[in-house]
C-alpha cells in the first residue's frame, strides 16, 4: 500500500536491494536525524486534528445512534418519537427469524460439487494452519487468530455452498452482495488495467480516450441506473434490434435471476471501471521506462516484463484501489434498485437495498441492524485484506 515509513513495520533482516523495504529503512534512518523540524511545533497537531476532529464529531453520534436504533423499535406518538429498546430482536429476525430467507438465503443440503468445495477449503485451511504451526515463526496468539480465521472461512464457505450449490437453495442479500462485490472488482480491475496498459502505448488519440473513459464516473449513480434501465429495455431500448435478431424476442433477462445479476454487474462495471482505470493509468505512466527497455534488451518477453517488472511496481496502487473499491462496492444499491427493484423476487437484492426498503417503510431498527451487520462483514473483509496484502507486499520487497 502506501510506501511511507511507518506503514510497513518490518522486522530487521538482511538488506534487500530493491523496493520499499530498502527505502523504508533508509527513510527511518533519515527520520531520526531530521526529527527536529518534524516532531515538535503546532504543525504536528494543526495538520491532522481538523480532519480527525470533523470525522470524529460527525461519526460518533450517528454511530451510537444507529446502534441504539438497531437495538430498538421506533414508535410515533403525540409529542414525538419513542425508541423502545428490545435487545437483539432485529438481528435475531435477520439471522434466524422471519427475514432470514431474505438476508442469508434459503439454505439446503449441498450437492456433490458443494461438498467438494467445502472439503477442499477445509483441507486447505488445515494444511496452511499446520504449516504455520510447524514453521515456528508464528506466536501462539497468531496461531489462535489463524485458527479462528480458518474456522470463519470454512463456516462462510459452508453457508455459501448451502445457498448456491444445493438443491433448492437460494442466496439471500448477503450472498448476492458478495457476488456483486467480487465479480465487480475482478472485472473492473481487469478492464481498468487492460485499458490503462493499452493507453500507455503510443497510440493515436490518447487524449481523446483519456477524457472519454472518464465520463461514466461523472454521472450520478442514480442517473447511471436509469440510463441502464433504458439501455437494457428489450422492447424499447436501443438493443432491441439485436435482441430480436438473435431470436430472443419472447425472452427477457429480467425473469432469470442470474441474468438479472449479470445485468447489475455489467452496469456497475461500466460505471466504476473509469475509477480504477484513471488511477492505474497514472501509475503506469510514471513507470521508469529504462528498466523495461533494459529487460527487453536482455531478451525478456512482453509477458515476462509485465509480470515481473510492471505488476510488482504497481502493486501498492493496486492494493489501495482494490481496498477502496471493496469498501465502496459493498454499499451497492442504486443499480439493483433502479434496474429491477431488487427482483426478480429477491435475486438482486443487495444488503443496502434491503436496508433501504426497511428504511423507506420507517422500519429504522431493522434497517440499522442490516447496516451494522454489513459494517461487521466489511470490516472483517477489509482487515483480512489489509493484513494479507501487507504480508505479500513485504514478501515481494
Amino acid at each position, binding site marked *: 500500500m502506501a510506501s511511507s515509513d511507518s506503514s510497513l513495520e518490518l522486522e530487521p533482516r538482511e538488506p534487500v536491494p530493491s523496493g520499499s523495504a530498502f527505502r523504508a529503512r533508509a527513510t527511518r534512518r533519515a527520520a531520526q536525524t531530521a526529527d527536529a523540524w518534524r516532531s515538535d511545533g503546532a504543525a504536528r497537531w494543526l495538520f491532522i486534528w481538523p480532519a480527525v476532529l470533523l470525522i470524529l464529531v460527525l461519526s460518533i453520534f450517528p454511530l451510537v445512534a444507529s446502534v441504539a436504533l438497531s437495538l430498538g423499535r421506533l414508535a410515533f406518538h403525540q409529542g414525538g418519537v419513542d425508541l423502545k429498546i428490545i435487545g437483539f430482536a432485529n438481528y435475531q429476525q435477520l439471522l434466524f427469524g422471519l427475514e432470514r430467507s431474505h438476508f442469508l438465503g434459503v439454505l439446503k443440503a449441498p450437492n456433490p460439487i458443494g461438498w467438494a468445495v467445502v472439503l477442499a477449503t477445509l483441507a486447505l485451511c488445515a494444511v496452511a494452519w499446520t504449516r504455520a504451526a510447524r514453521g515456528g515463526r508464528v506466536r501462539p496468539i497468531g496461531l489462535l487468530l489463524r485458527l479462528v480465521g480458518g474456522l470463519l472461512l470454512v463456516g462462510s464457505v459452508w453457508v455459501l455452498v448451502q445457498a448456491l450449490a444445493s438443491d433448492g437453495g437460494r442466496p439471500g442479500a448477503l450472498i448476492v452482495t458478495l457476488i456483486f462485490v467480487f465479480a465487480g472488482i475482478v472485472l473492473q480491475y481487469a478492464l481498468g488495467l487492460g485499458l490503462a496498459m493499452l493507453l500507455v502505448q503510443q497510440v493515436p488519440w490518447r487524449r481523446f480516450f483519456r477524457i472519454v473513459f472518464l465520463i461514466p464516473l461523472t454521472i450520478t449513480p442514480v442517473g447511471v441506473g436509469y440510463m441502464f434501465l433504458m439501455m437494457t429495455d428489450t422492447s424499447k431500448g436501443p438493443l432491441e434490434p439485436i435482441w430480436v435478431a438473435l431470436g430472443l424476442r419472447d425472452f427477457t433477462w*429480467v425473469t432469470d435471476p442470474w441474468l438479472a445479476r449479470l445485468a447489475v454487474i455489467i452496469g456497475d462495471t461500466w460505471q466504476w471501471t473509469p475509477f480504477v482505470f484513471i488511477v492505474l493509468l497514472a501509475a503506469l505512466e510514471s513507470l521508469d521506462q529504462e528498466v523495461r527497455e533494459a529487460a527487453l534488451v536482455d531478451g525478456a518477453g512482453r509477458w515476462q516484463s509485465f509480470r515481473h517488472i510492471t505488476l510488482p511496481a504497481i502493486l501498492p496502487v493496486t492494493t489501495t484501489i482494490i481496498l477502496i473499491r471493496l469498501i465502496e462496492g459493498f454499499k451497492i444499491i442504486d443499480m439493483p434498485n433502479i434496474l429491477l427493484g431488487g427482483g426478480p423476487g429477491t435475486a438482486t437484492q443487495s444488503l443496502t437495498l434491503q436496508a433501504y426498503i426497511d428504511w423507506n417503510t420507517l422500519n429504522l431498527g431493522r434497517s440499522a441492524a442490516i447496516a451494522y451487520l454489513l459494517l461487521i462483514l466489511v470490516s472483517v473483509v477489509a482487515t483480512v485484506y489489509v493484513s494479507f496484502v501487507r504480508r505479500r507486499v513485504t514478501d515481494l520487497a
Partner: protein
Amino acid sequence: MSRYRMVAAAIIPILVLSACNSSASPSPSSAAPQASTPAATTQASAPAASASTVAASPGTKFKGISVNILTFNGPQVAEPLQRRAPDWEQLTGGHVNVVAVGFQTIYDKALLDASTGTNSFDAYVFDPQWMGDFTGPGYLLDLTDRVTNDPQLNWQDIGPFFRDFNATYNGKVYTIPLDGDFHMVYYRKDLLEKDGVKPPATWDDYLAVAQKYNGQDLNGDGQPDYGSCIAKKKGAQSYWWIISIAAGLLQGKGTNDGAFFDTSNMNPLFGPNEAITKALETYAKTKDFGPPDELNMDVGGSRGLFTTGRCALTMDWGDIGTLTPSTYAQDKTGATITPGWTQVLDRASGKLVACDATTCPNAVNGVNYAPFASFGGWSGAINAKAPKENQDAVYDFLSYMSSPAISGIDVTLGKTGYNPYRTSHFDNIQPWLDAGLSQPAAENYLGAIKSSLTNANMVLDLRIPLTKRYEQDVLDTAVSQYLAGELDAAGTEQAIADGWNAITEEVGKDKQLAAYVASLGVQR
C-alpha cells in the same frame, strides 16, 4: 495535562453557543427556520376557522403569508399545484411554495418533519392511506368544521366514498380530496366490438379475452402484440394489482366489510385460503398473455404499451382515459369496472363459496364487483402544528384547488395526474371534450368511473398505522417472489400472513384492530 485543558477551553464557548441555539430551534410552536415565515405584517382578515370565504378583500386576504406544501414531483400531482399557485396568489395575496420530492420519500419526509418537530411544511398533498400513521400522533389538523361550512369547497359535491371513507378517519375529516384513485380495466373497444366480445365481467373472462388476442397484431405494425399488459415490477406499484384481483373474492358485504383483515380478530385475509390462491394464480396467468419483460415493467411501461396499441387489455388508474388523445389508442379505448368474481371467501372456513344474496348482497348479475380505491387519491392534509395564519392560508388554497370549477378542468388533463371524484365531474361533459376525448369515449370513460364510484362494495385501501410496511414491504416482496418462482402459492400466502402478523404484534393487536375497525367506519 495542558493539552486537555486547552481542548476543554476551546470547547466551552462552542457549548455555550450551541446551548443558546438549541433552546431556540426545535420548539414546535415557533416558526421553523428555513421555511414559511409568517410575516408580522399580515393583513389577514378575521382568522375565523370556519366560514373562510373567498369574498373577503381579494388580493390581500393572505398577503405576506408564504406556505410550504410537500408533495410528489411527478411532474403530475405537483403540476396543477404549481400551475395554479400564481392564480391563487393573485386572488388572495398568499404565496405557495411547492416542495416536490420523489414518490418513495414523501412519507418519510413528512413523518420525519412532523415527528422531530421541524415543521417546515404547512401541508402535505399525499396519500390519504397514510393517515393512520399521522392522525394517531396528532400531526394533522381536524378539518371537519371547515369543510362543512365552505361554499368554495362544496363538500357535498364530492363523491360519497371519498367524502365518507377517504377523507375521514375515526369520524373526523382530515384531508381535502384533490384526486380520485381507483383501478379500472381498459380494453380495445374497436377490437372487442368487431368480434362481438363483451368487456370482461369476471377475471376468468379477462383471461379468456387476453388469450384470444394474445399473439395477434393489434396495431397494424406487423408485430405480434399482447393480450394483457399489467405492470409487475418489484418496488413500484405492482402490489396494488393483486389486491384489485383478490378484492372481489375477499369483500362481499360492502366497504365496512374490509378486504385486508377479519374485523373480528385481525386475522390477515391475505393468507392461506382459497381466495388468495385463486388470485395469485390468476395474476400469474396474466403473465402468459403479456410482454416478456412484464415482470420488470412499471405502470409507465404498461401505459405506453396500451397507448401505442400493443395491448388488448390493461389495468390502471384513471390516467389512461386522459392519456389516449393523440395516440394510437385514441377513440379505440373502452373502460369498465374492475372485473369481479362469482365466488367469495367464507372467512371462517377459508374456502370459496358461491355468490348469493347473503354472501354478496351487492352483486350485479351474479358477479361480485369490488372496485379497489387503491392509494386513495392525492389529498391535501394540513400540519396541526403550523402557525394559524399558515393553516388558514393553505386551507384556502387546497379548497380552491378542490373547488368544482378548478378541479373540473384539472381532472380532464392527463398531465395533472388527477382523476374524477366529484359528481360535477361527470355531469359536465364539455371539459372532457375540450381535452380531446370524443363524445362516445368520454361517455364510456365517465360511465365506467361512475359505476365504480356508486358501487357500495368499493374497497378502501389499508389505512392503519404502518400500512406501508404491510403493503410495500411484506406484500410486495412476497408477491414478486411468487411471480419470480421463488415461492409457491402456499409459501407466498404463509409469508404474507407471517409478515403481517409480525407487524400487528409489534404495534399491538388490539390497537391495530381498533384502528382497522375505525378506518372502515364500522360501528361496534
